[in-house]
């Protein structure tokens, strides 16, 4: 295993995190963990300056692992993965600690919140040295579509896809396409014919 050089970034998320978590204490704890080269606090890590901060540290400090403690990875994991990748790091060298949904948003107890945030950050820092670079696979797409249902929705979708130049299979259970709309007389509010 190469010698880990870890950057840790604690997000305040405006006050979403910093109102409940002592972010400076978390960063201070992180800075003393093995392999950590830099630990910073910033208002919005997901913002452009936040991402630039990480990218510059990767270049200037030779970071080979990055941990961001902020919101749920379901929100911004792809954001930060792209950011570290743009700075030359494999995105799977990145790890996220959720100190918002799992910490600051679920308690008012600042002491307990700060303690839990520290543990989540420490867990991420301990984990990243074992992470390995991975490459996403790319697969070709079959450029034909199936549309299930031949009512107004299916017909419209099929026509738009077909007009874009792609073959469409339009499957309808009844003997004719048309669906509900073919049953209607005039339609509101213009009173125009439906078929």
């Amino acid at each position: 295993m190469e010698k880990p050089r870890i950057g840790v970034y604690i997000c305040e998320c405006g006050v979403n995190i910093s109102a409940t978590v002592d972010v400076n204490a978390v960063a201070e704890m992180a800075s003393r963990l093995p392999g950590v080269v830099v630990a910073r606090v910033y208002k919005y890590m997901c913002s452009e300056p936040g991402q630039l901060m990480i990218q510059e540290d990767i270049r200037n400090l030779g970071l080979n692992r990055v941990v961001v403690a902020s919101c749920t990875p379901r929100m911004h994991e792809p954001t930060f993965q792209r950011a570290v990748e743009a700075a030359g790091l494999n995105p799977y060298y990145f790890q996220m600690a959720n100190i918002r949904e799992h910490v600051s948003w679920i308690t008012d107890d600042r002491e307990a919140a700060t303690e839990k945030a520290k543990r989540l950050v420490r867990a991420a820092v301990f984990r990243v040295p074992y992470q390995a670079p991975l490459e996403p696979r790319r697969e070709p797409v079959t450029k034909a579509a199936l549309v299930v249902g031949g009512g107004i929705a299916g017909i419209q979708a099929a026509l738009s896809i077909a007009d874009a130049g792609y073959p469409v299979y339009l499957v309808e259970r009844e003997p004719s396409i048309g669906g509900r709309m073919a049953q209607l007389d005039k339609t509101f509010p213009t009173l125009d014919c439906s078929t």
Partner: protein
Amino acid sequence: MMDAGRHPNITLLTYSEVEAVSGYVGNFTVRIRKRARSVDEEKCTGCGLCQEKCPTKVIDTAYEAGMGKRKAIYRPFSQAIPNIPVIDRENCLFFTKGRCKLCEKVCPAGAIDYNQQDQTLEVQVGAIVVATGYGMWDPRQLPQYSYGLSPNIITGLQFERLVSAGGPTGGHIVTAEGKEPERVAIIHCVGSRDVNAHPYCSRFCCMYSLKHAHQVREHTGAQVYEFYMDMRAFGKAYEEFYERVQEDGVIFVRGRGAEVEVLPDGKLRVKGEDADLGRLVSVDVDMVILASAIEPQPDADRVAAIFGLGRTPDGWFAEAHPKLRPAETATAGIFLAGCAQGPRDIPDTVSHADAAAMQVVRLFNQGEVTISPTVAVVDEAKCVGCGECILACPYSAIARNLRGKAEVNPALCQGCGTCVATCPSHAIAGLHFTDEQIVAQIEGLLEGVLV
């Protein structure tokens, strides 16, 4: 409709159903059952002679919503696409009693084929749009509306057939007795916004009820009593339409129509509360139109299972995000269009369908899909080929290879980790979730807690 029938890029598969879907975004294999029409599609010219001569009449519960009849060999309606009839084998004399064959005798093209079998075909597609629409809630479930007890208590859809020039009465609004009604009641929210039926709003009934009121006034001059709770004229030019119908002289009663009683002389008594007057009201009419709720299709369970769709608590198919990803589903490459996802009117349906089409075209224009590398991998040295993982995998992503060892298809694997936990030989690892990564993470979490 006609454009879809003629488009060179569209293959129409009518009288057909999807039976199974396998694969993943960009690479789906779909099995489709094409039911036997008993009519040779190549030979049939669509002349309609068979339908004209067929001696068997059947109440048409599909297209005519029970308001009219069709034959046992039929096109659902005159502008049907394709313009090819089907034999309804459950009602055809030949299929039920072994005699008749009149359609075969009269067909000038020799297109009738009683021996035709269902066909199964398989197609390869990169994306799927589910646009399976909605079902009609049955007003018999709330007996206070007396639906089914008088032929003059009809649903909004049945009124559509009544007022349609191509419908069973040629567009004449008449009661079952064949007379123009003098008084008509329209009741909104029947089965919608009702905890005893569907709590949701069916969204387009307010507007079609206003349209029905307008049509009754225009065609017959009958007095119209419209019972409504709130008038949801939310769309562009809808409020103006509401104003216009008020000018038609329709009597609006603000309050839920509570009950319909069939009187001994066949008249219908509608009772309700007029919330503006603060008292109970009742009116005797000749016809009642129930703006009945729409609901998920009766086979939505099966469709959800075939396409791997989630459902929202109200039963409609679940979109990936209610605001930002309204046409996507939780399964990549499978999209939703129209009322299958929830009640919406025609303009909103068209927009939604185009949103789904846009997602499909976007995928095709990209030309390739990126598949996450966080998949399971098998260490063949440790694998004993027991097959436990194959049974455990929810995505059918694992099979035995030529060496008898488990092998994961990374294109199908979703990285869920079920096989990793199942493998008795500890031969499977989840990439990015390896044991050493997770153990290190746990050590970080518990430092100072456990010694």
